[in-house]
């Protein structure tokens, strides 16, 4: 009997440990498949050259700099939109809205989180693109700013729900103390509540960044995918995720080009891992500080 109990316990422990194995497995498989490309091309060229042209007949080049810059640019643009919008919305839901409004709006935001990225990308083509083309007088609207708008939409639910949790978790005494000193609710919100929840809000923003960096279908459909160093938000750009999505289907397995795509995957993994781990640590500190 006790033996059986112990076996059961070991079994559940194993399934728990599987998460670590999967995470390490993803990392090592990416690394393992990147090594042949590093050997052939050299790590330096990957990260210092901006020319990505692996299918060139005469001299294929594998610089991922322009892809990295494109990803960061589109993500940065997205955050300029979604951070102010998301935090304002979170502050409204947590501090201003009546309980009934909150009960209604929160599930609606979950619905927004559930919209598949391919649908958002489709709207980038049929709605956002034509609008951008009209406003800026361009032949088409498939460019970095389109991608930024769509990624802002994709990252909003994450930013809103995590910041709202952070703002709600600020102890009632903090607010009471501020109000008792004669501060208005607005002053209390800005000078007390937001600063007290700042680490949670930072974690929310970082998770939003992680989401935007890793998004594939929306940017693939809406940014035009020209593999060159972008100069402005009105340029067509090609992100790291889009490059993998476009090229993996066309290359034969186990060629240098194939392995080079795993290098991009490895870089993506490292960026999102760093972002997520940081937000995790920040959030953990936040919870300890507030004693929850």
């Amino acid at each position, binding site marked *: 009997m006790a033996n059986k109990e112990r076996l059961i316990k070991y079994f559940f422990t194993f399934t728990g440990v599987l998460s670590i194995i999967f995470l390490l497995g993803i990392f090592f498989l990416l690394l393992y498949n990147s090594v042949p490309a590093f050997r052939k091309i050299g790590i330096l060229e990957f990260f210092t050259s901006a020319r990505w042209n692996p299918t060139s007949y005469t001299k294929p080049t594998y610089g991922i700099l322009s892809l990295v810059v494109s990803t960061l640019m589109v993500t940065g643009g997205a955050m300029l939109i979604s951070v102010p919008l998301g935090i304002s919305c979170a502050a409204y839901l947590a501090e201003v809205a009546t309980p009934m409004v909150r009960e209604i709006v929160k599930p609606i935001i979950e619905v927004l989180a559930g919209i598949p990225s391919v*649908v958002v990308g489709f709207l980038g083509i049929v709605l956002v693109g034509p609008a951008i083309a009209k406003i800026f007088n361009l032949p088409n609207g498939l460019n970095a700013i389109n991608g930024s708008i769509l990624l802002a939409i994709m990252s909003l639910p994450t930013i809103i729900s995590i910041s709202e949790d952070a703002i709600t978790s600020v102890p009632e005494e903090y607010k009471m103390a501020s109000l008792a000193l004669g501060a208005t609710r607005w002053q209390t919100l800005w000078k007390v509540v937001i600063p007290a929840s700042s680490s949670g809000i930072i974690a929310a923003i970082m998770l939003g960044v992680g989401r935007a960096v890793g998004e594939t279908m929306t940017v693939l459909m809406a940014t035009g995918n020209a593999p060159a160093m972008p100069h402005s938000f009105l340029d067509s750009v090609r992100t790291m995720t889009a490059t993998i999505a476009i090229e993996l289907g066309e290359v034969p397995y186990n060629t240098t080009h194939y392995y080079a795509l795993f290098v991009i995957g490895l870089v993506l993994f490292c960026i999102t891992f760093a972002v997520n781990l940081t937000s995790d640590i920040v959030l953990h500190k936040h919870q300890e500080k507030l004693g929850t």
Partner: protein
Amino acid sequence: MKKIKEKLGFTILGLATVVVLFILGVILYDISSKGISVISWEFLTQPPKAGMTKGGILPAIVGTLYVSLITVLFSVPLGICAAIYLNEYAKKSTLTRIIRVSIRNLAGVPSIVYGLFGVVLFVQMFKFGTCILSSGLTLGLLTLPWTITASEEALRSVPNSYREGALALGATKWQAIRTNVLPYALPGILTGTILGLARAAGETAPILFTGVAFFLPHLPGSIFSQFMALPYHLYILATQHPAIEKVRPLAYGTALVLILLVLSLNSVAIFIRYYLRRKRRG
């Protein structure tokens, strides 16, 4: 003066919320107003015809359902077991902390990276080839962190007295979990499962290279066949089709079916959770 500032500030925050809701409204309105006229019995029950310019999307609907089924069969049992470990057995230790960090990081791995992983592991190493099984397992890995988190939350909501009651009657720990804890947590686990299913049904990037096909004239015969899927079909119609303008209505129709599928799954889950909360509050 202070009062005016406060009013103004709160109005701006309210406006931000309205903007967010407006975005969702535009998405839903545009897709449904332009997609509704395309949806007919034929659209839902026929394969694409005449080079995908006519006919329906039946193979894509069926393909998405098959793949989601594999996804759930893989990630739900595993997710529940991992959650049982975390909530019932694990003590506060470094190992538990690392497991939790891993789960949260798995949730943040880009979906296209899961696609790369699926190609290497399932398509090449396990030699499944590009098929429903490879795609389903890849999506299963992707949804696993969500299933674990949702199941753990469900287990955490089970009052301790349920466990203690069983233990006091001489039940072993596993008996207590099986007979008292799991049944109580089941609706919550179901919610998580449905949300995972909705997520898997809408994903495109992980299936791109693990089994989805541009066009298949017939329904998939086994889990080792390639398949069509709703999100990929929408991607094809929106960007890859030779007559993009001509098939735009079909793209809207496909988008609407996909959204309806995902949203109805989401609303079922939200409804179950809402109902549970009310019931438990008494």
